[in-house]
């Protein structure tokens, strides 16, 4: 019975997301069904999370009735507006013969195993990783039990960690609890593992646009078997959901740059904005994206309207994030990441940077955590400088550079002792690069997949 309630809650997420997606995308042939389902899940999760947050913010009691009322209103509005077009998507894939070789089938079986394993593992036990319950699950538990968002109470409550972290996923977890009528951690972990499957599916569809199915599947297998990703996907850490939104953000912006279809620009901007609601790193990703876009617009010849492109990727994500900024400012939820005079930064760099680089290098080259992803990246990078396959791929390198720089800047200016900093770096070094793996892997595929390009 409880599993049926969970399935219904996911179904409501997907249908709500689908209604919003259909309002953006009127054409029938832009997106295949698998891609539509995953996009609907991503958008729907944001919808139910923000809906629950707004209900709590406006002092409405958190109840399933209110939530379903909004979802139903949205679906009816979309159905009335789109009429017959509401249930349309690209069905041409249905007639296509997708997989030809036993090799492709072998790859597919391994990918399905990885996803199946992550689902199985996540639903088997309650939260067992610190941040999953201390930083995120605890918030969802408080919101569910109080049927409200008691901000003042929460921030003063012992054990309420990181009040400045965005609350989209804790409210999405609250939504699931409301559907279930009880706290059920294994099902929340199962919900979070959908983001892992979503990342792989989004990655596959983007690769398949440019490469043969075998190569796209090989790329997905590499993504699915990154040990750190496969291990964290079942823990309900928020690094996987944010990696999902970052994947959607960058890959649809890439697709816009290739195909010049405005739908993809909007989708990319939307996912970037939603990523900002998942973790604070989503904000730095947005900054990195805007900086990288500025640089490619300035240095590369692009056959797009540059001003509109820059305006949309700057404005839409910021507009989505703006309410949380106001909320944080109003309730003074900010955290001080910098203290002291500016000239002290040089001493901090001298003191901290060698340690940061040392820990990161040791971790990234650990095959038990990353397989040979970063070795492959270095080879692809050298190859890119010798013989670039697509100059536009600079956008991936620039985003990786800026995002990593933001991580390092925070490490350097953070007003904590060196011992504490070492602890923080060791805690985050397995997780922060995870947010960039699809960007890195897509770059490797672009640079190395010339032989497997689809005609």
């Amino acid at each position, binding site marked *: 019975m409880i599993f049926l309630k969970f399935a219904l809650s996911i179904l409501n997420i997907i249908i709500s997301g689908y209604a919003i997606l259909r309002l953006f995308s009127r054409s029938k042939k832009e997106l295949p069904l698998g891609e539509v389902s995953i996009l609907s899940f991503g958008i729907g999760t944001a919808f139910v999370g923000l809906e629950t947050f707004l209900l709590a913010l406006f002092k409405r009691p958190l109840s399933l009735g209110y939530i379903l009322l909004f979802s139903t209103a949205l679906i009816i509005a979309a159905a009335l507006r789109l009429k017959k077009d509401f249930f349309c998507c690209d069905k041409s894939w249905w007639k296509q013969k997708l997989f030809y070789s036993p090799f492709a089938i072998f790859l597919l079986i391994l990918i399905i195993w990885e996803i199946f394993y992550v689902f199985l593992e996540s639903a088997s036990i*309650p939260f067992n990783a610190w941040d999953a319950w201390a930083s995120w699950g605890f918030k969802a538990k408080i919101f569910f039990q109080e049927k409200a968002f008691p901000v003042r109470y929460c921030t003063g409550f012992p054990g309420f960690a990181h009040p400045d972290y965005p609350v989209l996923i804790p409210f999405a977890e609250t939504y699931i609890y409301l559907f279930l009528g009880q706290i059920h951690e294994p099902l929340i972990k199962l919900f979070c593992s959908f983001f892992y499957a979503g990342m792989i599916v989004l990655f596959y569809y983007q690769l398949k646009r440019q490469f043969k199915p075998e190569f796209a599947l090989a790329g997905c297998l590499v993504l699915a078997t990154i040990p750190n990703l496969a291990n964290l996907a079942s823990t309900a850490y928020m690094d996987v959901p944010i990696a999902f939104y970052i994947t959607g953000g960058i890959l649809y912006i890439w697709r816009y740059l290739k195909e010049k279809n405005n739908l993809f620009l909007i989708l990319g901007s939307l996912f970037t904005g939603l990523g900002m609601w998942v973790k604070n790193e989503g904000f730095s990703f947005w900054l990195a994206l805007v900086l990288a876009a500025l640089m490619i617009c300035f240095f590369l010849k692009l056959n797009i309207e540059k001003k509109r492109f820059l305006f949309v990727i700057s404005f839409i994500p910021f507009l989505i994030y703006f309410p949380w900024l106001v909320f944080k400012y109003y309730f003074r939820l900010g955290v001080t990441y910098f203290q002291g005079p500016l000239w002290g930064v040089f001493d901090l760099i001298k003191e901290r940077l060698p340690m940061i680089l040392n820990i990161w290098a040791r971790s990234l080259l650990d095959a038990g955590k990353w397989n*040979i992803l970063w070795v492959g990246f270095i080879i692809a990078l050298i190859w890119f400088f010798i013989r670039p396959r697509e100059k536009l791929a600079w956008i991936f390198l620039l985003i990786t550079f800026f995002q990593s720089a933001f991580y390092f800047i925070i490490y350097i200016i953070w007003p904590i002792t060196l011992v504490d900093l070492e602890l923080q770096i060791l805690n985050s070094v397995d997780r922060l690069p995870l947010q960039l793996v699809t960007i890195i892997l897509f770059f490797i595929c672009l640079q190395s997949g010339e032989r497997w390009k689809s005609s």
Partner: protein
Amino acid sequence: MKWGKREITALEKNLVTVIFVIWCILAFRLVISQVRRTLDFVLPAYSFNLEEKYELIDGGFYNFAKFCEARVQERASMVFKVVPQEPAFRSPEWFTKEYLVGRLSYLLYPRKILRGQDAAGEARHAIVFDIDSQSLRLDYR
């Protein structure tokens, strides 16, 4: 030997193939460990109910939390004390204490876990962590 487009493409293909094969060999270890874990831990865990699953994660500590939950009113406060003395900052005992405070706050919500002498006045119960014996007890004050 002169390097033309064909030679470079062939080199690229071979290099990509070699890297992918190495990846698969290393990934095979991951898949094997996942199969083992599925058989040894994941599938057996499905036969437990939710309470038993919590016991699987937290062991006797979960039972202690349930014991406190049954004896302390909702929204009451408890003070967390360490005996014989507070552990040194960042020592292994300090990390254990921090974990226990955090986990108890989570499991016992909406009961409040307070720390330090300042909180002692308003709390009628105390959770005492004995470092020497690594045990927990609930005291009525």
